């Protein structure tokens, strides 16, 4: 059983940009919410599998982000590093409804999370 948690309005994130959100109970650290040029939205933990760089601060291109610390390219759909680098950042399911961004989480995970109206 999963639940939708409203994170923000789509327009709170710039196209090709990202914002950070804390989701205690779901993720130990901050989660980066990315918006692509095509207005797809993805959520990935804000921690590069290489040296923990904040992915939210990278340059977004296609469905990827380039980590600002050492230029690893992380796929936004699944958090996987592009070859030849190997590693994976945790990714989360998100969806857009009526121009708002929602995170899908299991109900038992959402106990500690606040939500937006």
């Amino acid at each position, binding site marked *: 059983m999963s639940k939708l*948690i409203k994170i923000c309005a789509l327009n709170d994130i710039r*196209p090709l940009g990202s914002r*950070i959100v*804390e989701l205690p109970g779901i993720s130990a650290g901050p989660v980066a919410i990315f918006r692509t040029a095509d207005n797809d939205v993805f959520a990935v933990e804000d921690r590069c599998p290489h040296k923990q*760089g904040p992915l939210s601060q990278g340059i977004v*291109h296609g469905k990827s982000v380039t980590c600002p610390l050492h230029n690893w*390219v992380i796929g936004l759909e699944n958090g996987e590093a592009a070859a030849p680098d190997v590693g994976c950042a945790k990714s989360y399911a998100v969806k857009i409804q009526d121009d708002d961004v929602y995170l899908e989480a299991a109900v038992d995970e*959402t*106990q500690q999370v606040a939500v937006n*109206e």
Partner: protein
Amino acid sequence: MNMMMTNSPKQLQKQRLVLIGNGMAGVRTIEEVLKANPELFDITIFGAEPHGNYNRIMLSPVLAGEKTINEIMLNDDDWYAENNITLHKGKTVTKIDRVKRQVIADDGTVAGYDRLLLATGANPFILPIPGADLPGVITFRDIHDVDQMLAAASEHQKAVVIGGGLLGLEAAKGLATQGMDVTVVHLMDTLMERQLDETAAKLLQQSLEEQGLEFLTGAETEAITGEDRVTGIKFKDGTEFATDIVVMAVGIKPNKALAEKAGIHCERGIVVNDTMQTYDPSVYAVGECVQHRKNTYGLVAPLFEQGKICANHLVNKCVLRYLGSVTSTKLKVTGIDLFSAGDFTGDDTTEEIVLRDPGRNVYKKLVIKDDRIQGGVMYGDTVDGAWYFQLMRDEIDVSDLRDSLLFGKAHLGNSGHGEQNQISGMDNAAEVCGCNGVCKGDIVQAITDKKLFTLEDVRTQTKASASCGSCTGLVEQILASTVGGDYSETPNEKPLCPCTDHTHEEVRRVILENDLKTIPATMRFLEWRQPDGCAKCRPALNYYLLCAWPADYKDDGQSRFINERVHANIQKDGTYSVIPRMWGGTTTPDELRAIADVADKFNIPDVKVTGGQRINLLGVKKEDLPAAWADLNEAGMVSGHAYGKSLRTVKTCVGSEWCRFGVQDSTALGVALEKALWGSWTPHKFKAAVSGCPRNCAESTIKDFGVVAVESGWELHVGGNGGTKVRATDLLGKVKTVEEVLEYARAFIQFYREDAHYLERTVHWLERVGLSIVKERIVENAELRKEYAERFIFSQKYAQFDPWQEQVSNEKATRDYEHLKLVRKLAS
């Protein structure tokens, strides 16, 4: 029912591509085709040898017992299967029927084609002498030949290699390693005469003799003697001696027989145009069998280039052209460093620069014509071979480098890999890349295991030379000696990034010529492969556009690296550093108090003085940045741009105001210079300094633009660097007044802004374009200098604002610094 028609099987049928020749050039072309469009063709490959595609240039190490056949396989059976390629191993195509568009193999296999690719390679040249067909006469071309040589080495003792070229010497060394007594017979007086001059050839012969080979030069073979098999060899001068095997390595000739029989136009090889197409438009050809613009090629780099271009046309993209290749040679014999390229003999119209150091066993020669390198030979120390080769292919004017050219690029000041300049004596555990901690052994292993051929591949896979780049020469050398006689060079016309084939220059020119004023418009116009590019091209385009259209271009923050987007420097833990500007390195008690207050108020953990005479607040949380800036703004301070590809600092000494040696007011000039240059975006960071006397306490001679006061005025220095590679500036000239200093500085920085590639420091830009052109435009031509300076002043009108204040006063912008907030507790 009409819907069914559009899905008719006829339209779904793929085109048929047939490759004849399962070797490196052909299979590389197929790989490029698959990369560009994996769905376009049904692919069939015929190979006469009973193997998959293997790395032919690695046959020498196999012969020497340093590698096994399995280790040199490039494409195994699984690869063909995974890519749905029908492979006919061990089948020789004997006929091409161009009317029916079919190829027919010796076992009767028939395959139809829509496009045919010929990559039939080359055959060894056999001397037309008596006895050439005796058992025991072996060529050196494929796995079968190597097997024969290895078998002979286990049964016999004496070997003769005819041919003292690259291949012959590698064969000789291999057989000697297998325990045979080897004599190399060479028609010419010196070895490898097509790649080496006499001096280098003698050095090579000497060192090979020390390794146990014997040589007979200037010897013309008359016959190979023996009844049932080889027993001896006889020369024109009547001498004769006994041998058990003869390896014939006198050269190769393009294998054009099949094409010729099919009526495809051939001369020395199969003639192709710049798209690798033969005279039959549906037939293409690549590799050693090809003749392009009168040339044939036998090294791997040109063949791979041909493959890339051929594939581009096979998949109907049709933008690339093959213009021929300049090649370099590296001998792949353990313990010998040898490099040659281009015209190394010269003539009446050329000059030679030679370095000979018998003690170190080093010999280097460069042949120069009209200030351009025509070619060169290097023996003993080849670390700069790749650099010379690049200077040669890019036709760089070397007149400014002449005095130190032979000492090489790596001879001074490169940090990060100790004193290592020669890789042959280097231990596998020796660190090559100090930035990423990569050892020689790691690189060699990656090259062999992952089958790498290019510097770019090695960089991507191992990270060696991928950061500061100071070890590039070493990595190229390791690559060259591991993959052997030749390797793919990074092309001289480098595309801006993998999203495009266009170079930096082309992109800049097109932006200006076509009034392109946004990143998407530029990408559309130049048919970028990715709709929003990548982290490499977007910042470059953003810079090129704002440099081209200072008044009109709307800066795209999302295309800037994070530091320039948030006007602070990201640290390894994701916090930021904040550095306010201190004009010319000067400050006041009030400013210091404000900085101290900000450090207290925002719990900033570290405060450090920088090398550029500023104060650095380290460990600021992103969400605190706007508030910290507001406080600094309040005290009259602005952004120091310590994070940007922009003017960083103008460092000064105290000068004549205080110093007993100072001859001019360097501090005041430094402040004026900084006020003139701050705020401008540049291709890379730009540092300046002003010293009040030639004691040069501000270290002006390692800055992008350095000024040194002398009694009669100011010396202007450019292109210095204090980083990875220490490089002292070149003297641009001398001027009398402060106004002149400012005009020259503005003109120089503007020329750099308009001409350099994005992320190219002034040092690399100057080494590429030469100091002469800078002097020509900035010093000798007053009118041009004024134009550059005026263009800079114009662009500064739009660049000189404080980005901190702009961010603080813009609510929409400050929002980006905050975390998204989730406000209401979820009802449990």
